[in-house]
């Protein structure tokens, strides 16, 4: 398949503005990277001399590790700017932090931040590439890319796929990035959850929106659960976890309404028995625990595409 060989921008801020070609470029590159992860002989220092810094204003050991391993496998130097212990803790503004890192010759800044648009702010203020590792309720593009990679591996394509994303849509950057990517690739996405956690405004993403879980799951190829929290912004959005799981959780009975062999996914960490019942999480359709390697592969692909002079 012909298509893009480079990403158009210096940054990866979200899937919202990526073209189909760009997403497929990343997924194909990630597939080649995956083969290299197990084969230590094929790990090559193609990004040696490049420096990558992670800035995690919100903790996520798993995502941060995944980025750092990806950098190391490609020979880049990966450093974590211990945000909790550095000057940013003393009130240094993000723009200033970025400008300082830029002056030190950092090639890529990987940022996770609790507010929407923080990676965009950083990207505007620095020459280095910026990768969004999750911002507020906006996007988590690398998580979505690894989800897309898993779907691609299992189902072989996206065109006409029916994907149900269930749970706290309003606060989920994973749901949003997945929706942007899947819809761009030709899948049909239904977002479902209690009315307090999924508003009709999300139709603006090009997705269907419903409060009926069964309707969303019916005939779907992929069922994706999202982590829910009882309290957001100090206000409860549903009465309690028991009521949530009985009305909006996915169990084996509900999963039967999906297509035979439909994939069960969850970005983790999963509340067992709440979003998904234990038998669904551990069942044969679940790919939840098989996505971690794809996370490293996708991040290697991104690093290479954004940092290497040759492109891919």
């Amino acid at each position: 398949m012909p298509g893009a060989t480079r990403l158009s921008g210096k940054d990866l801020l979200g899937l919202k503005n990526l073209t189909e070609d760009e997403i497929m470029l990343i997924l194909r590159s990630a597939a080649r990277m995956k083969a290299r992860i197990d084969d230590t002989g094929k790990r090559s220092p193609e990004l040696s001399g490049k420096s990558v810094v992670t800035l995690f204003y919100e903790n996520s050991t798993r995502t941060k590790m995944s980025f750092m391993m990806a950098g190391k496998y490609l020979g880049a130097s990966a450093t974590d700017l211990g945000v909790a212990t550095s000057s940013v803790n003393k009130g240094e503004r993000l723009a200033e932090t970025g400008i300082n890192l830029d002056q030190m010759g950092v090639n890529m800044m990987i940022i996770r931040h609790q507010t929407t648009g923080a990676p965009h702010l950083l990207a505007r203020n620095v020459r280095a590439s910026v990768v969004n590792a999750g911002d507020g309720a906006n996007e988590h593009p690398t998580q979505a890319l690894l989800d897309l990679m898993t779907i691609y591996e299992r189902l072989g394509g996206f065109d006409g796929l029916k994907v149900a994303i269930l749970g706290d849509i309003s606060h989920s950057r994973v749901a949003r990035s997945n929706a942007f990517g899947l819809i761009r690739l030709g899948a049909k996405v239904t977002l479902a959850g209690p009315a307090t956690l999924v508003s009709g405004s999300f139709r603006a993403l090009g997705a269907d929106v419903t409060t009926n879980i069964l309707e969303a799951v019916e005939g779907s190829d992929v069922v994706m659960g999202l982590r829910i929290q009882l309290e957001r912004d100090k206000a409860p959005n549903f009465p309690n976890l028991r009521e949530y799981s009985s009305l909006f959780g996915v169990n084996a009975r509900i999963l039967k309404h999906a297509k035979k062999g439909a994939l069960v996914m969850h970005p983790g960490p999963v509340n067992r028995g709440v979003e998904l019942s234990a038998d669904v999480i551990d069942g044969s359709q679940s790919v939840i625990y098989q996505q971690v390697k794809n996370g490293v592969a996708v991040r290697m692909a991104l690093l290479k595409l954004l940092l290497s002079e040759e492109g891919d």
Partner: protein
Amino acid sequence: MASILIKGGRVIDPANYIDGGRDLLIRDGIVGEVGENLSEDGADRVVDASGLIVVPGLIDLHVHFRQPGHEHKETIETGSRAAAMGGYTTVCAMPNTNPAVDNEVVVEYVKLMAARAGLCNVLPIGAATAGQKGERLSDIGSMARAGIVAVSEDGKSVAGSALLKTAMKYASQFGLPMFSHCEDADLAGSGQMNAGARAALLGLNGIPNDSEEVIVARDIILANATGCRLHVCHISTEGAVWQLRSAKSRQYAVTGEAAPHHFTLTDEDVPGDYDANFKMNPPLRSAADRAAVIRGLADGTIDCIATDHAPHHYDEKNVEFANAPNGVVGLETAFALAYTGLALTNALSPLTLIEKMSLNPARILGINRGALSRGLPADVSIFDTREEYAIDPALFASKARNTPFAGRRVRGRLKYTILGGKVVVDNGVIRD
């Protein structure tokens, strides 16, 4: 003081139903005569206004001049310069400074700084509650004696309805109107832009229309109950326009204002790079809300245009959208935006436009300005509406540059501002 003859311009003066070619003679700081072919004899200065429009000096009911306390954003002097460069001769300064304008000492300070700058009449507005903390009344009576023109908690609403009602009752005793910023903080929650499709696309929490409308309704009810005049600030939603229209149909003593950004932009204009120059409170609303605001201006529901000039330092806006302060500057772009967006589109006649920007604000304040009537202080602004230009924040006289209108093409460039007969902006250049 010398006499000035403004010759050959198109005078737009809604108080006297004039829209046509007239000369205007200013003598000793007051309006002498408006008529055709006035003689140049004896005039100390003749200003050639041919091709230009000549209007009563603009009056803004809603500016933030940040002094005392936030002088890095704006001072009364730089704010006055911005006002003069926008064609404004009178502005009302909101009390959310540090310290807040909640006693007569701060009122006197604001008046003193304004007099020193001498470029614009700056009328102070007093806070409704001490320190704008929403706990107890501010010194409303003493501030009335010192010269405040209204009471306002702007920046937020008085959350407690009983306290607000007391403040209204007390303020009305001194003939002061309540200028209400209408926002239910609980409903607005952690919202950062208008709730709707654009917020969903950008992943920002939404501020729903109802957060504005429930407080508009409450304040109308309480104002009517207390006999206090109510002025609703920066109306941004269709529902708020309805509330105001309904109150007016019942002859309630309510008025309202709309800001240029709300009748010019919508939430669809909030850019994908999260530029905080598009963050203000109330936020840019939907296209339907914008249309309702324009209809409200056209049918008289909304009485005036006020800028909500809210300067912030570049560093304060160059942060995460959620952490950026609300507000945009407005004094130096208001007329051009209103003229281009409302008059040139025939939403408002030029006469009505000037009414909304000068005469009606004067009436709400109960001051004898906003008209080119013989004997009034000669506050006059002269604009060139012929040539289109791009808004360039680098040229602002304000200390701040936080505008969402950089590069926007408009018509209505200020040429002269005359304050009480003194030319403070002369052919586009400020004179101090």
